Every structure is written in C-alpha cells, then in structure tokens.
C-alpha cells in the first residue's frame, strides 16, 4: 500500500521530524485560502499513490493565493501517473540550501533492512544510482538489534557534511527506521530531505510503502480508497488479484507464475492477453467469481483456461468455472488445458458439461484461443 505524501508526512511529524506547514484541499478556493493562511510562496502538490509526480507535472508553485487557486484548478481532476488527482497538498515554500536523500528498505539478497542515504538528494534513486553510485551510501541493519541513535551516528560518520548536519542526519535516520519498523514498511523514503538556509532538516517529500501482507495488523493506516478499473475493484472485494489489460484473450490460470507464463505464451504466439487473474493458492476455490470477472470485460473475445494443479485442485477450479459458465452462458469460445492434481475429474467435467475437448498441450490451447479471438 502506497501512502499519499500527506499521510506519510503526518507519520513523520507525529514521530518528531520537521515537515513544511501545509494543508490538504480538494477545491481551488480552499487552495487559495490555504495559501493565505500559510503565506505565499507555496508549493501545490498532487496527492496520488505514486512517486515521480514532479516529472509528470504534478508539482506546481504559487506566489499568491490566486496563482495557488489556478495551480490547484490545473491539478484537480487531472491525470498524474495514470491516477486522477482528487486532492492537492498546499505547503509553505522554504528556502533550501541543500537536498539529501534518505531511505530504508529491505535488501532481498542480504535479507535484512538497509539504510540508503546520499548528499545528492532531489533526484530519484534510479537516477542517483545511475549517475553517481559512489554518492549512494548504504548500511545494513540486524533487524533483531534495530538501530539506535549511537549506531546511526557512527553509521553516518563518513558522510561529507558538517558535524551538526551529521548529527541531524543520524537523528532523522533513527526516527525513520522506527517508523519503518512500526509501520511494516517496504520503503520509507524522504527525498528530498532538505536543509534550510537556517540549518533545519525538513522532509520535503515522503514516500511510505506499507507491506500489503501486514495491513491487517497496521491499524493506524488510512483506509485505502479503492483504485483500479470497475472490474479490478470488484475482484479486490472478492479477494482476487485481477489486472485488466488491452488484449482480447481472457486468461484464467492458477498461480502467479503459471498465469504470467500463460500471458507470455499468448504474446509469444502472436496474441494479446486481456487480463491477469490469479486463482492459485488459497484462491483456488474462487474460480466462479474469478471467471465472472474475466468474462465481464467486453474486450474478451475468447477464453483460455490453463491449469496445472499442485496444491490447487484442478477439479475444484473447474467446478467454479462451470458454475460461472452455466450462470452466465457466455458466447465467447473457450480453450482448455488442464494438468496436475484432480486432472482426470476436471477433464471429464469439461467434456461432459461443456462438450469441449481440452487440449493436451498448453501451447496448442494458447494457439487455439488466439485463433478463436481473431475469428470472433
């Protein structure tokens, strides 16, 4: 879960870090009022669940309440990174002498948290890494020991900053690490971390990404506004992961790996998948709602059901498929390839109830589904 900037900054401020004075608004009039209260000049920032807003025109400046209203008018309702802007954050524009980069994430190879920091902030980490990897400092943390103030201070000792700034950097990192842990974050990033001309450290932006697997125990988070297309939101309510794509071959497969391989095979043989839909793991008993969603996409001209059961029983999945099929009576043609746990019964059900002969090879089923979609 990606927390919008203003939520992230609220967590930073509650933890004792300095953030610019600001207010979240959803109308141009309120934006002007915010600029008046805060005092121009201000920054107006689109609040969406995505980074790189500056590059996408999602960050504007206002030197007066009128300009602020104008900027808010431009941003509200517009698209930034494919997301509709419903709120903007109006913030005081500070006089910044330097911009640093600080982030905490996990290193998937070393299997532990890692602190990343740089005195070259303001650009994103990809650019930072590409441009000057030697300026990107990092330090791994033993998660059972954590990071205390003294350890953080030693960690940043070689950073090319003056003594007081190194102290402030260490304090910022210690606080950010505490948030990273208490919020089950995958990423806790402050970029830029500004140093004002008066020497104060200010979090000018904040990116907090929370581990979706930990949302149940994270009770302090805002309730996430539903995102995605109508069908994607419906899938989410059903506890299914569904991603709508541009193609015309509807895909139902079990497990993320097989589903991706099925989409890859459709593309490999010259077709275009209409969706990603996972009915693997515990979701294998949800094939009925899953197929209903796949078929509700009007772009779908043929259906490909590709199953390889291990933990997921293919006969249980096929029962769900038949349930949806007999309820919806779809007119799209379908191709099946089914192997693994429950295969004999699953194949029998399809022959008997749908009068369709499943393909033995996945590749043949993929080619058939592409052909059927093209003929439709």
């Amino acid at each position: 879960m990606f927390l919008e900037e203003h939520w992230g900054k609220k967590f930073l401020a509650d933890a004792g870090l300095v953030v610019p004075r600001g207010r979240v608004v959803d109308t141009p009039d309120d934006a002007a009022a915010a600029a008046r209260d805060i005092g121009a000049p201000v920054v107006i920032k689109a609040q969406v669940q995505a980074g790189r807003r500056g590059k996408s025109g999602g960050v504007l400046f206002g030197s007066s309440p009128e300009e602020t209203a104008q900027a808010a008018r431009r941003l509200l309702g517009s698209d930034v990174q494919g997301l509709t802007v419903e709120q903007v954050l109006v913030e005081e524009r500070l006089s910044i002498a330097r911009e640093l980069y600080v982030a905490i994430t996990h290193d998937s190879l070393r299997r532990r948290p890692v602190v990343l920091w740089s005195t070259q902030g303001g650009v994103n980490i990809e650019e930072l890494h590409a441009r000057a990897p030697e300026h990107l400092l990092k330090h791994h943390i033993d998660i059972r020991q954590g990071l205390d103030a003294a350890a953080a201070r030693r960690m940043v000792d070689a950073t090319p900053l003056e003594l007081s700034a190194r102290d402030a950097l260490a304090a910022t990192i210690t606080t950010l690490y505490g948030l990273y842990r208490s919020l089950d974050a995958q990423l806790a990033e402050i970029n830029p971390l500004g140093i004002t001309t008066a020497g104060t450290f200010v979090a000018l932006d904040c990116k907090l990404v929370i581990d979706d697997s930990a949302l149940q125990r994270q009770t302090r988070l805002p309730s996430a506004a539903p995102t995605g297309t109508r069908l994607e939101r419906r899938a989410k309510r059903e506890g299914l992961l569904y991603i709508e794509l541009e193609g015309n071959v509807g895909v139902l497969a079990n497990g993320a790996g097989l589903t991706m391989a099925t989409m890859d095979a459709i593309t490999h043989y010259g077709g275009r998948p209409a969706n990603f839909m996972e009915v693997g793991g515990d979701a294998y008993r949800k094939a009925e709602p899953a197929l209903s969603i796949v078929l509700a996409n009007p772009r779908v001209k043929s259906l490909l059901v590709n199953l390889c059961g291990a933990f997921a029983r293919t006969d249980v999945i096929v029962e769900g498929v038949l349930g949806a099929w007999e309820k919806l009576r779809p007119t799209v043609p379908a191709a099946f390839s089914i192997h693994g746990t429950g295969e004999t019964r699953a194949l029998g059900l399809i022959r008997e109830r749908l009068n369709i002969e499943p393909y033995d090879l996945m590749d043949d089923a993929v080619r058939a589904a592409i052909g059927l979609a093209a003929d439709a």
Partner: protein
Amino acid sequence: MSHVSPLIFDRPVRVLVQGITGREALFWTKQMKAYGTDVVAGVTPGKGGQVVMGTPVYDSAEAACRDHTIDVSVLFVPPRAMKTAALDALRAGVQQLIVLAEHVPVHDVMEVLAEADERGARVVGPNSPGLVVPGRYFVGILPAWEATIFRPGPVGVVSRSGSLGTLVSLNLARGGIGQSAFIGIGGDPIVGTTFLDALETFERDPRTQAVAMVGEVGGALEEEAAEFITRMTKPVVALVAGRTAPEGRRMGHAGAIVAGTSGTARSKIAALREAGAHVADVPSQVNEILSRTVTSDE
C-alpha cells in the same frame, strides 16, 4: 552463508508438521506418509497429547523435539502465526524449516531468517510449495505421487512458482525425463533458500545431470544465480515468467536497486543468457532443450 542442513537428503528424513490438525495439513500429512515420508510428530498449540493418523501431537516444537529427532519441520500455519512457529522450531534446534504460507509480513520473514542464520539453520520459503525427491520423500503441498508429474530422473528443478514448476516437471515427465529433486523456493520478496542455494546443491548432487530453473519478475535472485551459472559444469535451462506482465506502479523499487538490478524479466533473461544458461520462451521449450541435453532414463 554456510548451512548445516543440506537442502535435500540422501537418507530418510524425520519430519515435524507444525499446525498438523488443520484441514489442509491433515490432507497433506496423509499424502506425505503414504509416499513414505517419515512424519514423526506434529504441533498444534493447545492440542498436545492428541494423536492424529498415528502421529503424536505436541503443544510446541520445543516439546516435540524433547521426544523426537527432527530433520525438517514443515509449517502449515497461517501467515501471521509464522514467526512464532518458526522461532519455536529454530530455538528447539530444528535445522531445516519449510514455510508454505504466503503473505507473511516481510519484517517477520527477516526476523526469522536472522535467527536461522545465527543458528546455521536453513529456511525454505515462505510461500514454498515444498520439496520432492521423487521415489524417496516429499515435504509440502506438491502431488509427488502423481507419476505423470514426478518420477526419479536426472533433472533438478528449482522454481519460485508452485504451479509453473509443476507444469515444467510434468512436461519433463511426459518426455520421459524424471527429476533428481524439485525445490520450490517460493515467490515472496525475501526467501530463505535461493536459486543460488539450489544450483549449488544440484551442481554437487551426483544424481543431477542438468537443471531446470523457473524464475519470474521481481527481486534479484535470478541475477544472483547467473553469476554462479558461469562456473557450473552442468547445463541450466531457465524460464522467466512475466515478460509481458504489466509493470504497474513501481513501488519499493529501491530494493532492486540495492541489489543492482531492475527486477524485470528482460534484465533476468539477459543475465542468464550472458551466464550461459539456455533461456526458454514458453514452458514446453524447457523439456525440448533438456531432452537434447540429458540422458533419458527410458
């Protein structure tokens, strides 16, 4: 990291099933026993003293380990109970854990792996479908008894995905090529046993002639393994799922940058090709390539 516990065993393994009284655990315990896996004890807190399918149940792994010698514990516990169960087993001295749960909070995984590292223990997973050594034993949730999928043979299979790894195994078996072992490492962002660990195991394993490696987008495990492939004597055929997966919103991308990669299928395929692995475009090509590489057992 040097592990005390080997990944696959040459001798019968003594298995503990944590969460043994749950519905899925009962089903799979029955299958493991029927296959010949030596399930010696189970754990369900609060149900110590019961006996299921002839297997004694304990309140904790610690209690079970007082009465039994355990080589491997398989965790049929829900994601949020994983940390407690895994630490229980590690502190009781179990040297290999197989964690099946998916959606385990990543911070919990890191805590468990830190504890395992300190104890020289091995964790497979989370989100692992388990291990199969065809004809000898299996631990986890794979249909090892299906002779159309798993049969003894010369190819080591390692997969992040249970379903796609199973399909690759099935294709091999249909082509008359069996497996020396199937290792499901799991698809989570952080896992205890990596492609590199599995490749090192297969490179040493006298039964293995070649390796089928089934990866997917995300993380850097394929790239890490590529470096080792350059030094391997046995051929590796790789499949990387997700080359057409939508990139989506790039969240937590810093993790891949730390590892020096972008985590895309393209970067993985390039690294594997560069290292000398054969890269298949579709699952059926894996067995086509391997059938030219290994001596079939038929």
